[in-house]
């Protein structure tokens, strides 16, 4: 026969466990809608939450930080606010959108007279953007990841004068996925969002929808 103190203890413990159960249940049910199916929020197959089973909904729950280039204003804070040095944000080149211009707004400083690779003509402060002649009049531009610091100067030039194929993206091999992203906190345009880990990139396209990444480094081609 338990005494009164023990009984109250059990009662309180039961209350705490019930509260924890209530919190978990409510959080799981609320999050289910958006992460139903395996496609996370970018799921295109159903659009309905009712038909999704709970186990499937729970499968795609990991979230990572990503930068939405359609909101980015290239303020340059990505380069300085990341906990990583150099930043986990780097320039990504969406080749499919590139015009291969000779007069590249992302590569050359505005007002440059001679279109060449002279250091004083380059926008990139670290010489991370490489220019290679393909055929007249086209040039290929490649971002050397090791050198890129994510300052977004080339991105700004490319969006202002070109097709916008140079875009800032969080490189997930470098990102620590901090619970509170210090770039997200300082981003003036709220371009940083959490996206499902199985759709980790948000490259913009000429349409309303993001580009689907063609290849995933070291893993597989989509």
């Amino acid at each position: 026969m338990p005494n009164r103190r023990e009984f109250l203890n059990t009662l309180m413990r039961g209350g705490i466990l019930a509260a924890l159960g209530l919190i978990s249940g409510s959080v799981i049910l609320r999050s289910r809608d958006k992460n139903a199916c395996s496609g996370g929020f970018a799921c295109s197959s159903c659009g309905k939450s009712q038909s999704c089973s709970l186990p499937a909904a729970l499968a795609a729950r990991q979230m990572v930080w990503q930068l939405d280039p359609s909101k980015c204003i290239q303020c340059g804070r990505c380069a300085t606010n990341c906990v990583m040095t150099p930043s986990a944000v780097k320039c990504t080149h969406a080749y499919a959108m590139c015009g291969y211009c000779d007069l590249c707004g992302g590569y050359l400083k505005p007002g440059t007279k001679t279109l060449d690779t002279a250091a004083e003509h380059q926008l990139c402060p670290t010489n991370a953007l490489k220019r290679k002649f393909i055929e007249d009049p086209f040039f290929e531009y490649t971002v050397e990841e090791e050198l890129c610091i994510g300052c977004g100067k080339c991105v700004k030039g490319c969006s202002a004068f070109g097709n916008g194929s140079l875009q800032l993206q969080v490189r997930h091999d470098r990102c620590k996925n901090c619970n509170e992203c210090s770039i997200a906190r300082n981003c003036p345009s709220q371009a940083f969002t959490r996206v499902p880990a199985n759709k980790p990139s948000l490259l913009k396209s000429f349409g309303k929808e993001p580009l689907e990444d063609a290849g995933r480094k070291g893993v597989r081609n989509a």
Partner: protein
Amino acid sequence: MPAGKESEMRKIKPLPAKALKTPAGKTATTVILTLVSATLSTAAMAVQRFPKPEFESAYTQPQTLVPLPRGEFLAWMDVFVLVVSLSIVTWLVLKKRSRLLVFAMSVFSLAYFGFYREGCVCSIGAIQNVSLALFDNTFALPLSVLLFFILPLVYTAFFGRTFCAAVCPFGALQDLFAFKPQALGSRLNTVLGILPYCYLGLAVLFAATGTDFIICRYDPFVGIFRFNASFGMFIFGGILLLSGVFIARPYCRFLCPYGVLLNWTSRFSRRHITITPKECIQCRLCEHSCPYDAIEIPVTSKSPESRPAMVKKMMLLTILVPFMVLISGYAGSRMQDTLAGADSRVKLAKEVMALSVMQDAGNSIQDDSFEIKAYKTSGKTESQVYSEASAVLKKFYIGGWLFGGFIGLAIALMIGGRMIPVYRTDYVTNKGRCFSCLRCVDYCPVKS
């Protein structure tokens, strides 16, 4: 362009239109909102100024490569390691009663959760994710984070704070520094013990309003785990660790917001560690063994207070508690503006307002701040910005009442706890404050 290349380029293809949006809103308003935001988001869409070149040479366009994030199964491995280490530590604490093995486990946890996982994900920070998920429907909480929040509490409900003993990397790190712990005295312990309640209240308030995750932002040890602390955080962490030589585990006792939850859960735990496995022989050896002032010494003076005096105290408390809650809640609601000032939406509204005042006065602005530039390109109207900010302010009004009331309740209960007389014959652990580190068990001469 060679025909073979075409299929390769197609690999970069736009997703279907509805893919961008979250699944269809249930009400008409959400549909309208979705449409509005869809039209707004097209404002910053890429413009095709130059056509895709028609290459004549055999040039192959490189693929755009995107590195994949950490594999999802690794998140489940973290949960697995958490469960296993919680179970092992609980077994070591309650069955083996071995301080040495608990210490070994704490070194493992420090290595895995601390230096390998770099302090993320952690149960302390998970408070914020859970709070945000409870109040914001658009925030999707990963299940592993929910488990990191729930599991230590469940274990604590049954076995006491074994999580603090050797699973939490913060505790493990500070435990290494507790060389010369000094007793602080019960008064100082109780008063400083209010700090975690304030920290918890603020953290939940800021997380639930979607303002900030302050626990992670002002995390003193994560920078040490990653070897890249900012100067301020390095000093903060360093001070905590160095003061931890004399005041053992200062973060755990006087700051940790998760500790508040663990403390209250542990008070009602089913099987908590006891100093002695059998009967206390009153040898007093354990008296000074606890670095955390969590051992209650016997109060043997058998002079119970008179019934009228007790009734008086009881009546005082029944008035004091609601009074404190109300006063403190009111104070919290008055702090609405100050607290909401930390929110980016409120900050933006203030900047936009200042801008429009300047423009009305006929002054031209030389250089817009990045926030204003972003606001101008986003296509939001001024009134939209203001209504967003006022919605945040409203949340902070309610949140301020709750936050203040919570602090008031914590202080009132602290006072009440000190008013109630206790009688004890043995040395016992304070179930709320005890971290189950087993130092006292080592000192106890009674072995099972």
